[in-house]
């Protein structure tokens, strides 16, 4: 089990190691910061494809920090990392494909009687 905590001295029985929580709070402030940036864009930018792309990039950044640090995936073996990432990458492909399809269906329906 990979662990962040590295204790220099061996513990006596019953003794409890000091908390090592710096990395947790660092990740927390990164997540809060990214959410704050998202809100800045909501109010300062008009809705556009560019704004949506910014949101998606920021969301993926947040997802990275949650999965890599909080869920500890960054510190697991390469095999496990790929086992999780490859199916998710295929899901993103499906998402893009079906959204494109949705735009096309909408276009057909809206122009049907024109």
């Amino acid at each position, binding site marked *: 089990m990979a662990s962040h*905590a590295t204790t220099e001295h061996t513990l006596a029985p019953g003794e409890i190691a000091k908390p090592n929580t710096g990395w947790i709070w660092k990740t927390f402030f990164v997540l*809060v910061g990214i959410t704050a940036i998202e809100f800045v864009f909501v109010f300062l930018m008009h*809705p556009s494809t560019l704004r949506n792309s910014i949101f998606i990039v920021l969301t993926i950044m947040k997802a990275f920090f*949650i999965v890599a640090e909080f869920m500890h995936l960054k510190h697991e073996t390469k095999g496990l990392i790929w*086992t999780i990432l490859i199916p998710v990458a295929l899901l993103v492909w499906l998402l893009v494909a079906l959204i494109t399809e949705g735009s096309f269906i909408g276009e057909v329906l809206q122009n049907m009687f024109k």
Partner: protein
Amino acid sequence: MAQSTTLQSPTAPATQDAPRTGNWDGGNEPFKASYGKLMMWFFLLSDAFTFAAFLTTYGMIRHKHEVFTGEAKEFVFSTRWWPIPDHVFNAFPGLGHANVPLGFVALMTMILIFSSVTMVLAVEAGHRMDKADVQKWLLWTILFGSTFLLSQAWEWSHFIHGTPEGTMMADGTVFHGANLAMNQYGPVLFADLFFFITGFHGTHVFSGVCLLIWCFIATTNGTFEKRGHYEMVEKIGLYWHFVDLVWVFVFTFFYLV
């Protein structure tokens, strides 16, 4: 074991009870992760498929609908086009009908992110076998998780009851709020997707809170202390972070975009 070895002939296998540790004997942990953690990862992957199906459906249906092209200030609710989220989700508890675009959902997001932090602190305390700290952080996580659930209940209630203005429907009557067949905000499917996506996420949070309460009781009873490790906290932690992760996506695709 010295006794038994003396009884055996030199050609017989040393002992039948010794654990077999070969690659194909189940002696290895694939990916150096324990069985429970690995299965939790695979469960979460399959759960991600479910949520991705929801979000894919949302994306496809949304792109199928017309987009409001005018100025954001002149936006009005209509079944013709998809609503702009900050015009729908702009209420805050205790502020009546004041316009606070996305204010409450921002607070809910913060609560959930914070619950993720207290969860990871509980896992960290578990690594150190610090029972008191595990209890403390589990309680905080339960508190924030429950607060999120209550916030979502309020959000749903407000969405269902709607605004006093309402929206004129095709038959000339004014409709307030939303149900599965009709809503004042936009196309029928907008409300349906809101109920299903946030409802499914809320159910996950609820299950998570139940698991955490059970985990807190087990910690207090010293179950994990006796077992020698707090891996259960870690596994429930994985689930809890996943729920937070799903919210990050729901937040972007339902409220921001």
